[in-house]
């Protein structure tokens, strides 16, 4: 289960599907979470109202983002935090490195942050001689395996406990073949405890930033963010600018939606609020754009900035469940990733808007009502407009459109096609050129089309 190298989703997905037992196991594991989420959503009569409110708050914030960011900066500074601005990933990484250099930090503990993944912070710091340890258990497992996370909330959901046992045996010298979850968790705990104790700086992501208080909120289930920033003196919090909400009064809406949507829990185990640095310490908040303001200016894709990274769209996506997060070859996989990645780099991620049946489940599960599947459809046209669709895909569409504009030609070609489908030997229909027929039978061709039958009937019924 190594990270895939191809950017082409069908190629990666096909590879994933070769192990059908594993594909089914992956599907069931995520469906289990989706069912838990359904029970939680259905237990709140006000669920749809919460979604509507959250969506409107986010839309409002995005429409006045510059104002709210300034308000946040002012209030965060008043509480003693240092606020940095980064226009892209490189600038973000440089700022982090400067802070670390200033404190001569060599060992870092980091709690889960998709933004630092997006900026490729770990490899950057490692190149600069700094040890970074991911402290979220799932993140640590994939880090030891030198893989990216395959899911934004459950980074190691693609791994079975046997895989974790092998990984821990190799890197943490646990007993070979011992797959007992308690044993494995305890081993990870002992290993991470040492790392926590030695750390010079703690890095966290941010789930919500509150403009009116200048505070930030970090949600974890393992408490690793809290420990990671409580032992060292310096806390660096990295956040995309879209994480802002206007007021602490709005927070309850999002906290109720986040964990229910993500894992089917009523609330994350730890929702920690940081307002300014601890006594004698430093709190650095880095506000990162990295393409977000471009989205803000786009009528078609602005909604995707509402995303609170709960991962519900991944859990519900029937394609994600059966192709695995790594098949997307992107930091954020699944439906939301299939929007964000091609918008940043259409050439590499051109297959992602097509890794979708447009079933719409993601749009209905989304706690902030992002019209995900509609954006994916629009994005397909964008991929074509950027000349990223191969001629093998555009030419057949051009030809069929031309035929469909000529009803008589279409009807004639239909008869010819059906004749061949009825009369050609099997090997000429079922071969490598016909992906439909690899696992499926073709429909049986009837003798007449509907329009022929209709014309005959009309003739018969016509009064003499």
């Amino acid at each position, binding site marked *: 289960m190594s990270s895939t190298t191809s950017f082409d989703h*069908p190629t990666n*997905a096909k590879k994933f*599907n070769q192990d*059908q037992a594993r*594909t*089914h196991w992956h599907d069931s594991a995520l469906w289990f979470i989706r069912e838990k989420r359904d029970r939680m*959503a259905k237990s*709140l009569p006000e*669920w*749809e109202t919460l979604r509507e409110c959250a969506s409107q708050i986010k839309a409002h914030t995005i429409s006045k983002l510059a104002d709210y960011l300034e308000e946040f900066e002012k209030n965060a500074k008043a509480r003693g935090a240092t606020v940095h601005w980064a226009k892209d990933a490189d600038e973000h990484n440089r700022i982090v490195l400067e802070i670390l250099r200033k404190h001569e930090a060599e060992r870092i503990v980091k709690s889960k942050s998709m933004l630092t993944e997006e900026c490729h912070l770990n490899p950057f710091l490692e190149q600069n001689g700094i040890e970074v340890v991911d402290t979220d258990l799932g993140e640590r497992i994939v880090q030891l395996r030198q893989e990216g996370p395959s899911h934004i909330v459950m980074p190691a959901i693609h791994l079975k406990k046997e895989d974790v046992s092998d990984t821990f045996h190799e890197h943490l010298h646990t007993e070979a073949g011992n797959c007992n979850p308690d044993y494995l968790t305890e081993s990870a705990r002992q290993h991470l405890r040492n790392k926590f104790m030695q750390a010079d700086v703690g890095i966290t992501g941010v789930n919500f930033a509150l403009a009116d208080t200048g505070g930030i909120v970090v949600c974890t289930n393992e408490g690793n963010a809290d420990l990671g920033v409580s032992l060292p003196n310096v806390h660096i919090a990295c956040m995309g600018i879209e994480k802002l909400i206007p007021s602490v009064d709005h927070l309850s809406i999002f906290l109720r939606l986040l964990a229910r949507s993500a894992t089917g829990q009523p609330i994350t185990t730890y929702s920690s609020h940081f307002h300014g640095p601890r006594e004698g310490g430093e709190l650095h908040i880095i506000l990162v754009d990295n393409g977000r303001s471009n989205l803000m200016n786009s009528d078609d894709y602005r909604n995707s900035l509402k995303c609170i990274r709960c991962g519900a769209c991944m859990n*519900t996506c*029937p*394609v994600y469940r*059966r*192709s695995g997060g790594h098949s997307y070859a992107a930091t954020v996989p699944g439906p939301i990733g299939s929007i964000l990645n091609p918008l940043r780099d259409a050439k590499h991620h051109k297959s992602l*808007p*097509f890794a979708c*049946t*447009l*079933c*719409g*489940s993601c*749009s*209905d*599960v989304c706690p902030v009502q992002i019209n995900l599947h509609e954006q994916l*459809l*629009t994005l*397909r*046209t964008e991929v*074509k407009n950027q000349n990223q*669709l191969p001629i093998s*895909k*555009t030419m057949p*569409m*051009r030809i*069929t*459109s031309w*035929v*469909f*504009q000529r*009803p008589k030609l*279409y009807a004639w070609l*239909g008869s010819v096609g*059906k004749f061949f489908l009825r009369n050609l030997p099997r090997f000429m229909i079922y071969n490598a050129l016909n*992906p*439909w027929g*690899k*696992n*499926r*039978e*073709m*429909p049986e*061709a*009837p003798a007449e*089309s*509907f*329009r*022929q*039958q*209709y014309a005959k009937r009309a003739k018969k019924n016509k009064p003499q």
Partner: protein
Amino acid sequence: MRVALFVPCYVDQLYPRVGMATLDLLERLGCDVDFPAAQTCCGQPMLNSGCDTDAAPLAERFLEIFADYDAIVAPSGSCVSMVKNHYEHIVHGDPRYEKLRTKIFELCEFLVDVLKVDSLPGNFPYVVGLHSSCHGLRELRLASDSERNTCEFNKPQQLLQMIEGVQLAELKRQDECCGFGGTFAVAEEAVSCTMGRDRIADHLQAGTQVLTAGDMSCLMHLAGLIQRDKHPIRVMHIAEILAGYEVPQ
């Protein structure tokens, strides 16, 4: 009521029985049905492939052919949703479109909401597995879906239950996608077939004898797998069951 019958291209060519069943059913319910012969395809395959400029002339033709009817009815949620929801991108601003989009209906939707059918004749003594096709479900809202916390309703199911003898199969995953997805079925053949086989497995455990849906495209994909894997499930479009057609042998 002057109703135009919109028969999607692949139904016209490959599943004429579905078109005839729709026609029979509408006529029996008192509609004056017309099949405009100039119609071909709504353009969904083109738009779904990102080729909006190839879909545009087909959308234009669709407006010309269908704009003057009182209602347009099609036995396909997916094609109806294309016209109702996605033409917006390509023919926006056309006043004919604003009117037309309120007059186009998926068959079950038309029977329940416009004709207000409350009984249907016939006897269909089978365990029927209803596949909720995604576009009908989540774009046309023919039924409540499992993701949202809304009142439960299901128009196709409501109609099936009017037929004597119908016993509905109870699925474990009520409304999951079958994996067809248009060109997805070919471009992502591996995932598409895994998804389809999972849907069929759910119907097998539920005892489905006749698998039905409002979209022949989903059924074409599932039937292809059923036939290849030799499962004892027959496949019929919902129009065929509602029109009292026999199970094909």
